[in-house]
């Protein structure tokens, strides 16, 4: 395997960076995050024109039919630009629909007409699909990202005891905003009282589709987190080069410089892990699920730490509302939580790797 980006992947990434620099500068992020839904229809339409909303959606269904590495490259740039709104939510929903073997709504998702999301968590706040308890379409889902603007919601629930995925229409249920730390994405509580929807998959098919969709969204999220880390590091390094104390740029002091060096180690390592996870998912590598967890463990901790240092290096300025670092710092926490934090994914690795390695398979004496 070649571990760098191919020429076409690099072009996509460069174009995405230019696009978001022009269409979604941080002034726009701040404007959009003040709106009720943290979503901007005009930006969404532009993203659709670029094909960004259908990267993974097959060409015959109106998408770009590209792979996970391309998605990761795009997500990294979106993370860097802190693009607000339901991109990741829509990605997760669309991935679930496709993984369940359906093409329903995919063309409209790619064209930007329809937005979707994935409703997984309940009051237990567990990311484990086994913890899904809602019976049919009666009950409550929580922490559902960007459900406010979702036209169609993929809902994980139980159908006579078995895991099931439903497609539910966004206007047939009650949505209540759950104000939270990340100002660029909204969380909602959804109340279902015989909502209008249809069964997408159940049993083993539903489980596999849900696992696949969550893995895809998680890998994309890790790439997005990497982009955020990159930007926070750049802000801190820039500040360390220009801010002077005791007659020298503070970045000349090792206490500051070494924090910046750590930020680079974490950012580059997250990047390696995120792209490997994306590659492994695309190629159905035997370690693909473990690779997704490795990426999420690493980037969850790294993203928070890079944020910590990003604030610290900028001192009092880093703690102000005007400085953009807190927007990334907030996003870092919500991303750390989304699809399971490092502790959750370490346990998943324990199940996928450590429990499989009994005395028979281990190497050595």
């Amino acid at each position, binding site marked *: 395997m070649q571990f760098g980006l191919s020429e076409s992947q690099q072009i996509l990434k460069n174009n995405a960076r230019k696009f978001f620099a022009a269409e979604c500068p941080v002034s726009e992020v701040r404007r959009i995050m003040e709106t009720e839904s943290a979503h901007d229809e005009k930006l969404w339409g532009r993203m659709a024109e670029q094909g960004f909303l259908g990267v993974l959606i097959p060409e015959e269904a109106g998408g770009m039919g590209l792979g996970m590495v391309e998605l990761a490259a795009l997500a990294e740039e979106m993370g860097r630009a802190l693009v607000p709104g339901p991109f990741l939510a829509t990605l997760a929903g669309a991935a679930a629909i496709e993984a369940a073997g359906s093409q329903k709504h995919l063309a409209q998702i790619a064209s930007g007409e329809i937005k979707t999301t994935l409703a997984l968590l309940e009051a237990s706040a567990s990311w484990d699909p086994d913890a899904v308890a809602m019976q049919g379409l009666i009950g409550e889902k929580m922490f559902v990202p960007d459900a406010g603007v979702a036209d169609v919601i993929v809902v994980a629930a139980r159908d006579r005891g078995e895991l099931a995925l439903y497609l539910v229409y966004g206007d047939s249920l009650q949505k209540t905003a759950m104000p939270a730390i990340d100002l660029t994405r909204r969380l909602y509580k959804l109340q279902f009282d015989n909502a209008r929807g249809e069964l997408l998959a159940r049993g083993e098919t539903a489980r596999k589709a849900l696992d696949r969709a969550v893995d895809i969204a998680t890998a994309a999220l890790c790439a997005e987190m990497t982009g955020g880390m990159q930007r926070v590091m750049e802000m801190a390094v820039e500040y360390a080069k220009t801010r002077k104390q005791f007659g020298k740029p503070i*970045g000349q002091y090792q206490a500051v*410089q070494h924090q*910046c060096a750590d930020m680079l*180690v974490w950012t580059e390592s997250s990047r390696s892990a995120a792209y490997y996870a994306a590659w492994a998912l695309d190629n159905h590598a035997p370690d693909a699920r473990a690779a997704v967890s490795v990426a999420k463990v690493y980037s969850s901790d790294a993203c928070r730490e890079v944020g910590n240092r990003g604030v610290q290096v900028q001192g009092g300025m880093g703690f102000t509302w005007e400085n953009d670092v807190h927007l990334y710092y907030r996003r870092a926490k919500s991303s750390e939580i989304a699809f399971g934090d490092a502790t959750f994914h370490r346990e998943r690795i324990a199940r996928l790797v450590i429990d499989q390695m009994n005395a028979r398979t281990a*190497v050595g004496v």
Partner: protein
Amino acid sequence: MRAWFAANVPKDWVQRRNAEESMQARFEYLRAWQRKMFDAGWAGVSWPKEYGGRGATLMEQVIFIEEMARAEAPPMANVLGLGLIGPTIIAFGNDAQKKRYLPKILSAEEIWCQGFSEPNAGSDLAALSSEAKLGGDAFIVNGQKIWNSYGWAADWCELVVRTDPSVEKHKGLTVLLVDMKSAGVEVRPLKQMTGESEFCELFFRDVRVPTANVIGKINDGWRVAMGTLMHERGTFGAGLQVNYRRNFNRLVEIAHRMNRAGDPLVRQKLAQAYTEIEVMRFNQMRAFSRINETGVPGPEGSIQKIFWSELNQRFQQTAQEIMGAYGQLAHGAADAIDEGQWEYGYLRSRGNTIEAGTSEIQRNIVGHFVLGLPKSY
């Protein structure tokens, strides 16, 4: 490759790893093994064909190393020759030097060591004071080197010396290839906190080194030495990652046997170790992709050095926690797990953030050369 390993990997290596045996005897065993690999054409997979290599890409080299690990093959003896000094000769040496030295590095006929650090020039390597004075067709070398690995086994040394004390410290250095059997070379073992003498001190008293043994140009030694150190930081980790994975697998087995693998805290720590070893592997693959494009390892190799050294210290601590009272048992204790190699590994890992450039120096390199922050020293 797989078939060759299956047929040729010595069956006694796994037992031998833990056996009571002198460092020297073990070294001779590994030397014979390298010779066998050389004869079959496997010793220098990524080296140019004309010097006995296979001309493979670094990526193929990584696959090769992973296959070696899968086959439970012993490592090759000439660690520094293969990993650091050979690549330096390939990059900076002239044709005569390449012809003269490279095949014997691959065959393990000549073992190599590095003479870089000095008692008063560690992190500040360019401040070194070992001097070489030109007299006719030879340099006369005087000085002392320290923290020298494999000096006790080495036939040759890549030595950095000062050839012009009148100019700025980085500009007056030269790299010499020194025959360790030359008159005036003395090797003294240096006992480490682990109890072994992996490192040595080297003393040079009026040692005569022909000018033909200059690698690169006279007074351009800093560039050559940095080339070696970039390899040390950047590509050396490929082999380590394989060892780490083997240690991890072994630790998981021990955790299962000690009924600790169900403990949630142990599971968290093992999974963290797995994560870090995997991320090290992915970093390595990315770094190698870059080296393939640019031809040389760059300062970002310091990221690797920071990563593998600190990872191993955390890993060894995790191993100690899992083994509890057993972890401290040393070689010679009847009840020690793996003949005391975990007690050894814990102590040895302390050296990781010091050798090959301290973590502090690596962070200086990252800060200044990668991030562009002002030089702090």
